[in-house]
């Protein structure tokens, strides 16, 4: 349950951005959360709604895009979505896979009122 400390880091960035853009309000926050990010989107949402009170984002809506784990086989070039986290290529059995997506924990974009 480290989602609250992750939300605290999120608000540090939000406040910095709001100040930078001289915004009065943040109305929408969009995150990208990878399947292997180590974070549970539902908990992130709960933590966000608790934390946002009395901040610049107190009316903001949180949107979370869940990103599946996507790997590329360095041997045969296949790009595969992995729901089982088994790092073995289904096409050629190689274990040399590169992770393309699915580990991210990213603030993608925000909507501001200026």
């Amino acid at each position: 349950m480290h989602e609250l400390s992750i939300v605290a880091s999120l608000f540090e960035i939000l406040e910095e951005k709001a100040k930078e853009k001289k915004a009065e309000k943040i109305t929408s926050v969009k995150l990208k959360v990878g399947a292997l990010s180590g974070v549970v989107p539902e908990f992130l949402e709960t933590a966000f709604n608790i934390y946002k009170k009395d901040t610049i984002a107190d009316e903001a809506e949180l949107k979370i895009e869940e990103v599946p784990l996507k790997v590329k086989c360095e041997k045969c070039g296949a790009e595969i979505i992995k729901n089982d986290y088994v790092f073995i290529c289904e096409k050629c059995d190689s274990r040399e896979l590169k992770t393309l997506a699915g580990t991210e924990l990213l603030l993608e974009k925000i909507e501001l009122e200026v």
Partner: protein
Amino acid sequence: MEKKEILVLEELLGSNKKIAAEIRKKLEEKGILTINLLSSPGSGKTTLLERIAEKLKPDYRMAVIEGDIETERDAERIRAKGIPAWQIITGGACHLEAKMVGKIFPEIPADLDFLFIENVGNLVCPASYDLGERIRCTLLSIPEGDDKPKKYPKAFTTSDCLIITKTDLLPALPFNLEHAQKEALELNPKLSIFTTSALKDAGIDELIEYFIATLLKLRQKNA
């Protein structure tokens, strides 16, 4: 009032990552190998460190940063072995963050060989936080069961090394060593795996050899 959409693309844990990168750079410039130990509570991190301390002490200098929610107990156990230890009491937080290690940084002797960081006992949250380590080790003890790697993938996919502990209990418990190793390697084919018993002094020498070899590689890179 005007509405604006702004593309940010910033990592939520970006500030932790940045602090961790600074810590790693400074420690590695001094030729110190930093090892972050992750596991569930009670899987034997402190006992393993006690055995490692006994074996390394004659020839190498080591220190330990202990992370716990409460008490100085683990740091006291390490100090009793004649090893410098700092206790971070998180007061409820389930993991260590790089800035907590950063606070201790000025006190870390420059002539160390090994700095061990024993994370808060938790197989989930600590996996998301880089502490500036060179090697991340996840411990899995026999009583926890051989099904844990797939249940807690993040810890295993982000580790360099898996240390299976308490192998002296294998005769008493239905733990399939081969199954656990196979599943861990499916998650992370690059894992180095060690099977150990701190109680029976089994496998610890091999683990220490791995740490020493990694230390030498780090120093060769520096030279």
